[in-house]
């Protein structure tokens, strides 16, 4: 049944119905509403014997879940941004130990400058840690992906992140159908670990491995991701049959037929992109879109199949590889290697900067007419940047950059566009 509900509340409800046994979390905006709701459900005894640990840091949160998961418990946490970086060592460790923990990332920018708003810098920074990464377009998808994440993670013994755009989705009220407990139970069986700390059958977990075996252990982590490319669509189809909605698509095309140019993105911006595609199509521009629903494993073959007839792929990404450019576009280029397709990078939406439909439409037309510089920074205030660069050249002691920029753009909280 559909409810008009905040994204975070819907996520908390589906997580609760996945019957986690241990939740450990540390508060950080914009993840807080999810873990507050779960704390309430645990305290009220509505998630069985589930334990909620109020830990002292994100590092402790994921570390506690490493212990819980190795003890055979279904384990969940949520975090974002600085919190994800603070737990980074444990993020890699959980994957290396093959523990199927599920973690919601309420995507948020990284400091400095400190910024609590949405982009994908955080989850992109940890993209190679060995976790499966799902990206939700809307809150319905966010809900369904959590059930899928537990199923895929536990089948493969591999942790999974469900990346949900902070504020844009976590704090948005939308009509969402949170599957009933019986449907979730029918889809998600109890967790059967492949390794468990058991006094009756003692094992050593986390042994030291030297040069003679490390590569093999790491390859087997990679192999799980290769298997995930098959498992995600299969278990997604199963979920679709249970919940009555499509789910688990690695790549999701929109009006791709005879599209000369394809816009590719992850997460909630795909809604705006589809509107832009509609407008451009109405004006006769042959444009389509592709959403990447999964970023790890990277669905290279599926992507190649979907966009092979296009001439241009414009990657709109909410991250910046400093000193390089686009993270996603680099991987798209690799996936399309050998095909006569131009891949362009549009860095957009950093630190919560809105990505208006008009900006996308304008950028796509510019790509058609004159091509884009690489990378293209969407709606970057070049006059502000250039003024600051001049200032820095004139004075050695030019002061804190963030303060100087704010002096130009107006204080925190003014209109951003």
């Amino acid at each position: 049944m559909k409810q008009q509900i905040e994204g975070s509340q819907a996520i908390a409800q589906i997580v609760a119905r996945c019957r986690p046994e241990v939740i450990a979390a540390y508060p950080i905006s914009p993840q807080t509403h999810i873990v507050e709701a779960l704390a309430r459900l645990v305290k009220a005894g509505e998630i069985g014997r589930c334990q909620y640990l109020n830990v002292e840091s994100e590092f402790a949160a994921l570390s506690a879940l490493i212990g819980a998961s190795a003890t055979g418990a279904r384990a969940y946490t949520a975090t974002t941004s600085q919190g994800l970086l603070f737990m980074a060592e444990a993020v890699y460790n959980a994957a290396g130990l093959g523990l199927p923990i599920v973690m919601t990332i309420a995507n948020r920018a990284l400091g400095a400058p400190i910024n609590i708003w949405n982009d994908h810098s955080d989850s992109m920074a940890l993209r190679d840690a060995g976790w499966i990464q799902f990206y939700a377009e809307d809150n319905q998808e966010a809900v369904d992906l959590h059930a899928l994440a537990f199923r895929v993670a536990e089948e493969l013994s591999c942790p999974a992140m469900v990346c949900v755009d902070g504020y844009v989705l976590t704090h948005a009220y939308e009509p969402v159908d949170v599957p009933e407990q019986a449907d979730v139970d029918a889809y998600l069986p109890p967790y059967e670990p492949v390794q468990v700390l058991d006094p009756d059958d003692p094992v050593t977990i986390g042994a030291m491995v030297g040069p003679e075996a490390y590569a093999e252990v790491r390859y087997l982590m990679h192999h799980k991701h290769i298997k995930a490319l098959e498992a995600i669509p299969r278990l997604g189809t199963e979920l679709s049959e249970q919940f009555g909605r499509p789910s688990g698509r690695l790549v999701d095309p929109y009006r791709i037929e005879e599209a000369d140019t394809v816009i590719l993105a992850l997460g909630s911006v795909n809604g705006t992109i589809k509107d832009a595609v509609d407008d451009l199509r109405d004006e006769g521009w042959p444009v389509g879109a592709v959403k990447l629903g999964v970023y790890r494993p990277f669905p290279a073959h599926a992507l190649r199949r979907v966009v092979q007839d296009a001439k241009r792929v414009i990657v709109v990404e909410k991250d910046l590889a400093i000193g390089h450019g686009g993270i996603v576009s680099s991987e798209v280029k690799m996936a399309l290697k050998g095909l006569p397709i131009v891949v362009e990078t549009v860095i957009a939406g950093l630190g919560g900067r809105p990505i208006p439909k008009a900006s996308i439409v304008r950028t796509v037309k510019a790509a058609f007419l004159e091509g884009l510089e690489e990378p293209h920074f969407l709606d970057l205030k070049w006059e502000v940047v250039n003024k600051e660069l001049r200032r820095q050249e004139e004075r050695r002691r030019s002061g804190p950059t963030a303060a100087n920029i704010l002096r130009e753009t107006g204080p925190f909280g003014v209109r951003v566009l």
Partner: protein
Amino acid sequence: MHYQRVKYYQTGTFTVGNRLLDESNRTVQARMDRTNSLNSGHRACQGCGEALGARYAIDAAMRAVDNQLVAVNATGCLEVFSSPYPESAWQIPWLHSLFGNAPAVASGVAAALRAKGKDHIRVVGQGGDGATVDIGFGCLSGMFERNDDVLYICYDNEAYMNTGVQRSGSTPPRAWTNTTPAVGPSPGNPMGVGKNVPRIAMAHGIPYVATASVADLHDLEAKVFKAMGIHGARYIHIHVPCPLGWKSDPAHTIKVARMAIESGLFPLFEAEYGRVTDRTSIRRKVPVERYLELQGRFAHLFGDPPDTEAIRAIQAIADANIDMYGLLSEEGQRGT
């Protein structure tokens, strides 16, 4: 297992025969059914205090909980010398995650056992002083503060030995390490630095805190046994000499540890809910030189001329401990 006070029948010795104890109080290691939780064949150095301490501590914990035990280990010497698979020396379910997170991992294990209704299985977290006093201290404090049902054992060898002897927050004043070298006008670790984690543990008001030493293994076993009979957060800080890092004779590990106790530099005590409840009296007080001169890490104090000022300052620390814990008083004496 209660702690039985026994009389020394032999003079001039600090040992007491196991056979003088009640059957129920005899040492766990002397029993045929000891679990050898940390089995022989591991790669610890000759004379390793940590290996000795861990074997006694974990076997005692196993006996206390009828072998229903899970151990979580921080990165460090104990982890490295015991675990290179398939040569794991651990005969118990054992998990190593990271250097700085063992207390949090142990909290998670305890939470999972509670969620699964398996509370009868108990959890021990363990690590060296680097993992405990320094890098894992936040997680340790969090575990204490939440009063999670974990016994955490610190094997304190007073420096980062696994990485080749660098200073930790537990390195004593004036000790040489590779990052507090014995050079310059004030050689070794500075005076007036470092932290006392047993006292900090007590400040959390947790049910049980104790210090122990490999010089008194029966006392160590008894404290572990007692700790496992209590629920909630518990902490035992075990002094474990490291011949490599202390530049001491591997044959002198027990002697060095005993001199630390007898000089007053490492007081043995128990505390419950933040209050000291018992301590081991010093039987024959020795000057700190007797402890320091056994260890090459303090050799620069005994040059020509000796650094009498530093030795006097270290003696003052020992005397302050003796005064603070009443280590020379007859009252509350145990083990003599």
